[in-house]
């Protein structure tokens, strides 16, 4: 069994209202010096069997279409050892 982690984040130029709200809240609870927060999503996939080249390519394809919207988001795919 393999574990694949897909991180999806809003592109830097896209507004992240949640992140902005969190910056405000961090100030209120006394954490100083936080200039920016971005909130992303993390998908942890449990996959039966091995993740070979072909499978990884397929996962990358799915990350680009299903798990993220390339118009506003970037993603990374990592196979966890």
């Amino acid at each position, binding site marked *: 069994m393999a574990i694949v982690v897909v991180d999806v984040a809003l592109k830097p130029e896209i507004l992240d209202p949640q992140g902005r*709200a969190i910056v405000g*809240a961090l100030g209120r609870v006394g954490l100083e010096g936080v200039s920016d927060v971005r909130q992303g999503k993390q998908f942890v996939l449990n996959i039966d069997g091995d993740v070979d080249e072909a499978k990884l390519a397929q996962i990358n394809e799915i990350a680009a279409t299903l798990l993220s919207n390339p118009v506003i988001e970037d993603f990374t795919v990592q196979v966890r050892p």
Partner: protein
Amino acid sequence: MTPRVGVITFPGSLDDKDAARAVRLAGGESVSLWHADADLHSVDAVVLPGGFSYGDYLRCGAIAKFAPVMGKLVDAANGGLPVLGICNGFQVLTESHLLPGALTRNDHLHFICRDQKLRIENNSSMWTSDFEVGQEILIPLKNGEGGYVADEVTLDELEGEGRVIARYLELNPNGSRRDIAGITNERGNVVGIMPHPEHAVEKLTGPTTDGLGFFTSLLSSLVNNGKISA
């Protein structure tokens, strides 16, 4: 004397005017409380209204619990002040640990707005005393994260102590554990409920007027406790 019931407005609160209207229709006086004002203005009870406080960003109710007014409210609630949290208000109460458990994303992943049937399970809390146990009521429900969860021990404890105040009937609209729609603390003064009694107080705009019972219950409880003379 007319009981004074505070309604807290956070940035992003939406059903605050409705809660105030419900308080008035039940015969109370509504008092607006502002999130940034660390003062409860000597009210006799407080309603935390529905809505999207702070946009519901991060987690519903998570940012609101740090509002200046909440510090005062937590102390007062621990001291017996009646508090009703509706929907987002319920989320604020669990985040503030005035009530156990948490409210999570609806199991079907959609926001849902529907007329929901409930069974009242407890009429000894300060907000449910005018109901009969077993009474069925119909009030609006509208939420995206209304699934009540808690660990088994907590759930058993809530059941054992009769602290589930209302349960969903016919359809569990959000995947709540054991069909729980609302709970109370041990003392019965703090109640959280996911559906919206304040939207069922007028025949014209609600499916029923069943929601009024929560607000009239409070007024009766205040009188019975001697807080307010009849």
